[in-house]
């Protein structure tokens, strides 16, 4: 026992369990798409004329612009859901069962993050289909779609790691649930819903340093323009930064939990 093949087998087994759990708990899965869909519908229905504002990028429609925002919002809620699932596992004692098993400690974090990646892919697919049904198009074509998946999945994993880190520290599902309003505030303080050029001070300054701005712009550019811009690279880099930072914090939180349990 041990070695990379055992680790990979365990991580996949834990990921499969998490995916199964999500599918069997539709009340957890539904908010990931319902809330952002409603937000998307309200925004597109009421704010379409903003596309004619000076400084707004050239787009075929407001839906094209808002799709990346809806995906980002959905992935953030997915991160909260990952945290809640981890906290429930701790509260219910199943996490202890995993800890008492002879598996690599990192597998405890990685298993659920792989599941989060799969869920993220599903969320992105849902919003792309919704967008296409209601008249949006991806200017970047297949490559553009691939970039949206790439940035979205990496970002989804990063948001999941943030949720896990909070769950491992707080050990309480209600505490993790409590960060949901904060998530929305951070999202609104980014360029996810409106171009940074149209944001007033001080939100535009916050948005400049907010990784969510670059993640949503990185996914938006392939939809409204193409894959050749620096926004894509910035999006990938920001998503990777979130994964590295949040993943590191999650691993430290796990070590802390194992030490102090």
């Amino acid at each position, binding site marked *: *026992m*041990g070695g990379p093949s*055992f680790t990979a*087998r*365990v991580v996949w*087994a*834990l990921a499969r*369990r998490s995916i*199964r*759990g999500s599918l*069997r*708990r539709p009340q957890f899965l539904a908010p990931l798409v319902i809330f952002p869909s409603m937000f998307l519908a309200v925004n597109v229905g009421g704010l379409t004329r903003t596309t004619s504002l000076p400084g707004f990028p050239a787009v075929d429609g407001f839906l094209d612009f808002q799709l990346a925002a809806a995906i980002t919002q959905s992935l953030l809620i997915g991160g909260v859901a990952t945290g809640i699932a981890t906290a429930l*596992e701790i509260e*219910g*004692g*199943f996490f*202890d*069962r*995993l*800890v*008492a*098993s*002879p*598996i690599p400690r990192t597998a405890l974090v990685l298993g659920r993050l792989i599941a989060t990646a799969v869920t993220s892919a599903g969320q992105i697919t849902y919003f792309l289909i919704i967008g296409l049904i209601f008249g949006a198009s991806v200017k970047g074509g297949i490559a553009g779609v691939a970039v949206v998946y790439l940035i979205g999945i990496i970002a989804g994993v990063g948001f999941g790691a943030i949720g896990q880190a909070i769950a491992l520290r707080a050990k309480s599902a209600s505490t993790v649930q409590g960060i949901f309003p904060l998530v929305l505030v951070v999202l609104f303080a980014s360029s996810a819903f409106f171009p940074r050029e149209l944001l007033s001070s001080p939100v535009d300054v916050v948005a400049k340093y907010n990784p969510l701005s670059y993640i949503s712009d990185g996914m938006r550019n392939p939809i409204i323009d193409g894959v050749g811009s620096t926004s894509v690279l910035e999006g990938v880099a920001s998503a990777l930064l979130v994964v590295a930072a949040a993943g590191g914090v999650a691993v430290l939180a796990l070590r802390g939990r194992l*030490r102090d*349990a």
Partner: protein
Amino acid sequence: MAAIEVSALEREYRSGFKAVDGIDLRVEPGEVYGFLGPNGAGKTTTVRMLVTLLRPTGGRATVAGHDVATEPQKVRRKIGVALQEAALDHLMTGRELMELQATLHGIPARSVADRAQDLIGRVGLSDAQDRRVGTYSGGMRRRLDLAMALIHAPEVLFLDEPTTGLDPTSRATLWDEVRRLKADGTTVFLTTQYLEEADQLADRVGIISAGKIVAEGTPQALKDEVGRPHLDLCFVGDADLPRAREVLAGFGEVRVDTVDGVDLSVGVLEGSRAIAPVIRALDEAGIVVGRVELVEPTLDDVFAAQTGSHLEGAATPAPTAI
């Protein structure tokens, strides 16, 4: 080599509270060790340290020859754990959980299904294996928990209050399984707050109170330390008590005891084997016995002798009434 060896083990929390306060114990391979104590005595904290879920703040413990603090992965490979309140994923089926547990313990993929089926059948859950665990009864969850703990044939099995809250039938099923494990040579560390459970299953018992082990030994030896069995006798009509005392004096120390309508009590070393000779002797003396009860010391008496209080749920010891 001992299966479990604990020396001056401590767990002190940041508040300064010592949940476990310097305990020593040794469990031999193949032994069923009963760890008995009331809620909050330190049983679960001790188990959590021994199964590597909690780091000791003092002392040392080895399980299956490995130090729990410095070689936790080696310990985890050799132990099976069924914690208090069967910690199961209610969204998964019994079969899925068994197969996951097999994977976590490195059982080769080709053997996972067979091993899972074997144990599911052994604990009587074959018919329910494809149902979600959330639909299981408390007894079924406990049995599944036990089966999961056994998936890799552990050298040492930790059962933390395995029958708390179970109905008598489920309790009996689990007891049978523990007996079978003992027969197979598995070392079992069993925490319980039930006197009868420790008495029935354990080769040796450690009694813990306020984080310290207050008594240790075989159940019989511990009970012998606090007193001998005695017979409580009630006579029919106006019995000749002085004559009865004379007759009973030949069997052991006699005392007058008016509690619960008892006329006389006599200590009997032989326990239940003394009942027939005592009644025969009284009968020959013309004294008619209306009621006789054999009262034996219990582990609660041991606990009471050491701590001055009784174990929860341990009421007056149940006598053998005739």
